C-alpha cells in the first residue's frame, strides 16, 4: 500500500496554527522577561555576602539543570496542588519555563556582569549616580550586550522545549497540532507542517532578537 501525503486540511487550519504560534511566542516572551529578572537577582545573590543565599542559588541551579523539564512541569502542575498551590495551565507553563531558563541564564548573566570592567561602575559613581542607577544605566546594558548571543540561543532552546507544555493542555503550537491531527487523521503531515513552523519561528526569533538588541543596546550586538 502506498501512502499519499494530503495537505488539503491545511487551508482550514491556518487560524488554529497561527493562534498556536502566537501562544508559543507569548510564552517565550513572558519567560524571557521573568527569566532575565530572576537571572539578574540570582547572579547578584551568587556574588553576594550571604553564604546561605549563595548555597541556595547554587542548589537551585543544580537541581533544575539535572532534571528533565517535563518532570519539573508535571511537578509544578500536578504536584503543587496537593500542597495547596493550584495553578492555571498557562501560569504553570510560564512558571516552569521561567524557573528552567533562569537556571541556565543565571550563569550567563553572571559571566556578563563579571566581564564589565570595574572602572565603568566607578566612573558612574564618580559622576554622582547612585549605585542602583549606575547598575541599571551603565553596567547592565554592557553586560547584556556581551552575553547577547548566548542569551539568544538559550531563549530559542527554551522556545523549542516549550513544545512539551502541550502535555498540560496549554493551547500552544504543539497542542494545536495534537488537536488538528486528532481531527484530520493526518498525523504525519500535521507534525511536518508544525515542525517547519517551529523552524521558521526559531529563525524569526533569532533575527528579531538581533534587531531588538541593535536598537536597545547599540551596534555591539552581533
Amino acid at each position, binding site marked *: 500500500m502506498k501512502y499519499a501525503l494530503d495537505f488539503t486540511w491545511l487551508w482550514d487550519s491556518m487560524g488554529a496554527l497561527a493562534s498556536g504560534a502566537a501562544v508559543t511566542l507569548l510564552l517565550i516572551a513572558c519567560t524571557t522577561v521573568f527569566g532575565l529578572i530572576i537571572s539578574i537577582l540570582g547572579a547578584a545573590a551568587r556574588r553576594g555576602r550571604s553564604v546561605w543565599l549563595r548555597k541556595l542559588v547554587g542548589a537551585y541551579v543544580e537541581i533544575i*539543570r*539535572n*532534571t528533565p523539564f517535563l518532570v519539573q512541569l508535571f511537578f509544578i502542575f500536578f*504536584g503543587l496542588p496537593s500542597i495547596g498551590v493550584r495553578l492555571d495551565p498557562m501560569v504553570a507553563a510560564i512558571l516552569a519555563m521561567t524557573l528552567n531558563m533562569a537556571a541556565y541564564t543565571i550563569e550567563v548573566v553572571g559571566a556578563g556582569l563579571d566581564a564589565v570592567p570595574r572602572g565603568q561602575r566607578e566612573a558612574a559613581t564618580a559622576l554622582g549616580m547612585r549605585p542602583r542607577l549606575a547598575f541599571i544605566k551603565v553596567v547592565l546594558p554592557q553586560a547584556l550586550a556581551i552575553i547577547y548571543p548566548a542569551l539568544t540561543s538559550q531563549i530559542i532552546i527554551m522556545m523549542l522545549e516549550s513544545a*512539551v507544555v502541550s502535555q498540560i493542555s496549554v493551547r500552544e503550537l504543539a497542542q494545536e497540532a495534537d488537536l488538528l491531527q486528532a481531527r484530520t487523521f493526518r498525523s504525519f503531515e500535521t507534525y511536518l507542517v508544525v515542525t517547519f513552523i*517551529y523552524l521558521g519561528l526559531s529563525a524569526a526569533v533569532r533575527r528579531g532578537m538581533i534587531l531588538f538588541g541593535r536598537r536597545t543596546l547599540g551596534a555591539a550586538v552581533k
Partner: protein
Amino acid sequence: MIEFTLWDILRNLLFATRWTVLLSAAAFAGGAIVGIAILFARISPAKWARRFGSGYIALFQGTPLLMQLFLMFFGLPMLGLRIEPWTAAVCGLTFYASAYLAEIWRAGVEALPRGQSEAASSLGLHRLQELRLVILPQAFTITRAPVVGFLVQLIKSTALASILGFEELLKTANAINNATFEPFKVYGLVAIIFFLLCYPLTQYARMLEGKAAFR
C-alpha cells in the same frame, strides 16, 4: 484506589529507570555512529556535503525534539516499517543526538591547528587515514567535556519518550500517579532519580573542563 507504600512506588520507579538508562545508552551509541557520518559530511572538501551537514544540524537543532519524535512515530510506518514506541524513541533520539554530537566534534576538528592536517598529508596519509589517525583522536579528546554535558541533556530528553507511550521512568510515574493520586511524592521521586543519574555526569564534565583548562 490501591494502597502503595513508599517502597512500592520507589521499587516500580527504579525498575523503570532501567529503560531510561537503556534508552539513553542506545540513543547515545546510535547518535555517535550517525554523528560521525554527519561530521564527515560537515568537514568534507565537497561543498554539497558540507551544505547537507550544516542543513541537517540546523534542522535538528532548530525544531523541538517532541516534533521530531512524533514525525518518527507517524512517519516510519508510512515507509512500511512496523513501529513501536521503543523504535520511534530510539530513532528520534538517535537523529537528535547525532546532530548535536556532529556539531560538538566539528568544533573540536576546527580547533586543531592547521599544521596537524598539513603534517598528516606531508607524511603521505590520504584523507581517511589522516582523519582516523591524526585528526579525530585529538578532536574527540578535546571535546570530551561537552560530549559528557550533552549526554546529560540526552538522558533528560528521554523523558519525552513517555509522551510516545514508551514505558520509561516518567511514563511509569504517570501510571503510578493515576493509581495513588500522590503526584507530589511520585514526581518528586522521579526528579530525584533523574538527578542521581545526571548529577555525577555533570560533575564529571566539570572535572574534564577543569583539566582541559589547565593543559
